[in-house]
């Protein structure tokens, strides 16, 4: 596709369940980012991939959060044993840049609601 694609666009889950969020970056973009945005707030960095490796996982809030990327393409963010405070929009972005952080291309986000 032409842009960054995220699925699902909306997810409602019960507390304690696991969820998987998917991101398809722009073809050829080597850098991929996950951010979290709580209602009315700014973006909180979660993790960054360069190719399939993750040089910076510093933003993952707890060991319930994990992410992987395969084939230098699709990435999955997994949240285990979801809690109500995990409710947010999870935004994925990709970039062709490697030597510095240039323009990020964002998807529309996955809105997660934990009941």
């Amino acid at each position: 596709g032409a842009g960054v694609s995220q699925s699902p666009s909306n997810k409602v889950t019960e507390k304690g369940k696991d969820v998987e969020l998917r991101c398809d970056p722009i073809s050829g973009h080597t850098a991929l980012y996950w951010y979290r945005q709580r209602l009315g707030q700014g973006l909180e960095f979660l993790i960054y991939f360069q190719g399939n490796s993750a040089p910076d996982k510093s933003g993952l809030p707890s060991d319930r959060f994990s992410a992987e990327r395969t084939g230098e393409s699709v990435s999955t963010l997994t949240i285990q044993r979801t809690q109500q405070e995990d409710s947010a929009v999870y935004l994925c972005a990709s970039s062709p840049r490697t030597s510095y952080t240039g323009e990020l291309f964002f998807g529309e986000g996955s809105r997660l609601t934990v009941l």
Partner: protein
Amino acid sequence: SQQGEEDPQALSIQEGENATMNCSYKTSINNLQWYRQNSGRGLVHLILIRSNEREKHSGRLRVTLDTSKKSSSLLITASRAADTASYFCATDVSKAAGNKLTFGGGTRVLVKP
């Protein structure tokens, strides 16, 4: 605390007026970027200014950067109702461990027709 902090948090203006918002940050940067987010949507890149640049223009947008004060401003001239959105500054503090943008809390702009 956040690297970038926008000011004001919210701004309401009439169509045709100029909108100015500011961003302050704490550490040295490689570049600073501004993004726009319409309600319920993803972010869209507006402009990037490098640490060795002081001013940059793109259409009705003007961005300044003062590295001595660790601050930037975004000016939208002759605003339109379609400019209603949240605007975020983001700083690049890339280091050996990897690259990332750190975003501020945003300025919510309402342009009234």
